[in-house]
């Protein structure tokens, strides 16, 4: 009797398969399964109760969830666009710098080097309505009122966006700068001879060339911002009264504060759709922009 042997490729891949299964696949399947149960962290036995799509149905009719969903989309849209504009501006200016550009580039990266938690605390202090920097400055300039930066819903949203943009604009700036470095000079000179104004050569020559770089930055940042949690959690904790609640703060509240892990997992799966949609959208745009320029793909 010959023993059946496992195929070699499988044996060789087994360590990798085991690791991936342990850290990715099994947790993923577990979370997917638990999203179909009323799993509560405080009552482990609830894990074995199958409720079908109850959690999902509940989410779809949950105004709080959709408010957070919409707020996240709004947050994404505003933050990404502002970061793009600022990053583009910074990159264009950096590209003109002839002396000390390396140093400047490094300085530009500083905000990215900080932990988001620390950035959160820093801006929490800056925007604090009593002792914060901003209000101090405003008052010393003669404004009487102390603006409730982190207490008023709209202002709080603004403050969080400000922190997020401060921290991550350099992602855009660096990627766009890389694009500017890679850009051939000849077409710009040809455009000059053709009689373009600086704005026209930017609009018709530079910008189309930068679009692939912009879309790559957009994709990276959309995934990043869609899971914004740390800054929000530190600065407002989703408050006041849930007015700055984003998807991930809502999920962590549901999962860990209310201990309703099954429901939180279901929310996670629904909100992944958001990230997938943004990614697909930007990748389509990226391929189109690359095809325009005659790059492969």
């Amino acid at each position, binding site marked *: 009797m010959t023993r059946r042997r496992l195929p070699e490729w499988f044996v060789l891949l087994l360590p990798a398969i085991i690791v991936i299964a342990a850290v990715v696949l099994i947790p993923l399947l577990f979370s997917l399964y638990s999203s179909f149960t009323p799993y509560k962290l405080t009552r482990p036995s609830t894990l074995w109760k199958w409720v079908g799509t109850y959690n999902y149905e509940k989410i779809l009719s949950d105004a709080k969830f959709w408010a957070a969903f919409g707020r996240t989309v709004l947050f994404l849209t505003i933050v990404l666009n502002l970061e793009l504009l600022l990053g583009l501006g910074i990159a264009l200016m950096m590209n003109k710098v002839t002396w000390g550009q390396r140093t400047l580039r490094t300085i530009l990266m500083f905000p990215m080097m900080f932990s988001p938690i620390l950035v959160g605390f820093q801006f929490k202090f800056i925007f604090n309505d009593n002792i914060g920097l901003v209000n101090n400055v405003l008052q010393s300039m003669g404004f009487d009122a102390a603006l409730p930066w982190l207490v008023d819903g709209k202002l709080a949203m603004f403050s969080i966006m400000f922190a997020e943009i401060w921290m991550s604009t350099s992602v855009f700036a660096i990627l766009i700068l890389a694009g500017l470095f890679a850009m051939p000079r000849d077409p710009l*000179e*040809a455009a000059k001879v053709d*009689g373009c104004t600086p704005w026209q050569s930017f609009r*018709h020559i530079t910008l189309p060339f930068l679009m692939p770089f912009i879309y790559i930055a957009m994709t990276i940042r959309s995934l990043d911002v869609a899971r914004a949690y740390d800054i929000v959690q530190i600065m407002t904790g989703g408050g006041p009264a849930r007015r700055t609640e984003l998807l991930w703060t809502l999920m962590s509240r549901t999962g860990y504060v209310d201990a309703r892990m099954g429901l939180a997992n279901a929310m996670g799966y629904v909100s992944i759709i958001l990230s997938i949609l943004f990614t697909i959208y930007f990748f389509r745009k990226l391929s189109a922009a690359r095809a325009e*320029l005659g790059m492969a793909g």
Partner: protein
Amino acid sequence: MAEIHLTDLTKSYGPTEVLHHIEGHIQDGEFIVIVGPSGCGKSTLLRMVAGLETVSSGEIRIGERRVNELEPSERDIAMVFQNYALYPHMSVRANMAYGLKIRKLSQAEINRRVEEAADILEIRQYLDRKPRQLSGGQRQRVAMGRAIVRDPQVFLFDEPLSNLDAKLRVQMRLEIRKLQQRLGVTSIYVTHDQVEAMTLGDRLMVLNGGYVEQFGTPIELYDRPASIFVAGFIGSPAMNFLPAEVKDGSVVLSNGVIIPVESPKEANVTLGIRPEHLQPEPEGAIALQVEMVEQLGANTLLHGTLQGTDKALTASVAGHATYENGEFVNFSAPASMLHLFDPETESRLEL
């Protein structure tokens, strides 16, 4: 159509002067080739005319206008770049039309000009393609089309053929020449290729190290090179240079060979003689010890040294001929074909 005047033109980058007191007067409709080794400043000079580099001092006039301070777009020039510099995201048609659109010409006029240029260059069937779908030669045509549609006073070419393969380069060279003759537009063409320069230019400006070595017709440059540099640069294979002395109305080579010339002066000189002007003759005074033979079909190149010296000497003999390495071959050199240069200043000495 316009004349171009370059007056005492210099270009400096910081304290380094790269172009020194360039003078030149280009006639209306003339095809001028600026030629020189890489780094001689030829592209810089062209880019100064284009307005892509600033002028440090001196003056450039196109037609009646001083253009030093004008933007490239205001100089009424069109330029063809080495790397074609097409706009990658625009179709061939859009590439050619872009400059006209910027100038706000009517759509009908734009279409007319683009199609006319496309017909001249035989690229009509590619008008709706993107540059990436074209071969190098086709891209070069599009780049020229973009220049033609503008109907400028001056064409500027910055080594436009250097990215093409040898065969295509010869073909495009002829086409550029024909096109320029047909349109009659004053043109400046930069190249490092002396054959391209000789075949294209009405006149050649030879640049070396930022100085104009000579500015003249190809034949003037070939027959009466103004300096050792021009003599060595123009003509292929390159001219032979031998140290010599002028004494008693003749040139004495370092191995004692005497060639009679009519020169009253006595001096140390550098004797220049082109390989094709050495005539094989059994009694000839100049003996070449053959070290290598190159058979080119139409002629045969003999590389070796002047007998009794280590000075390199090359001769070009018409037709096929067989020579042994180490063999001595005798040549005579007619006095009218000799060039004498001052070894100090490297400039031409008139006989």
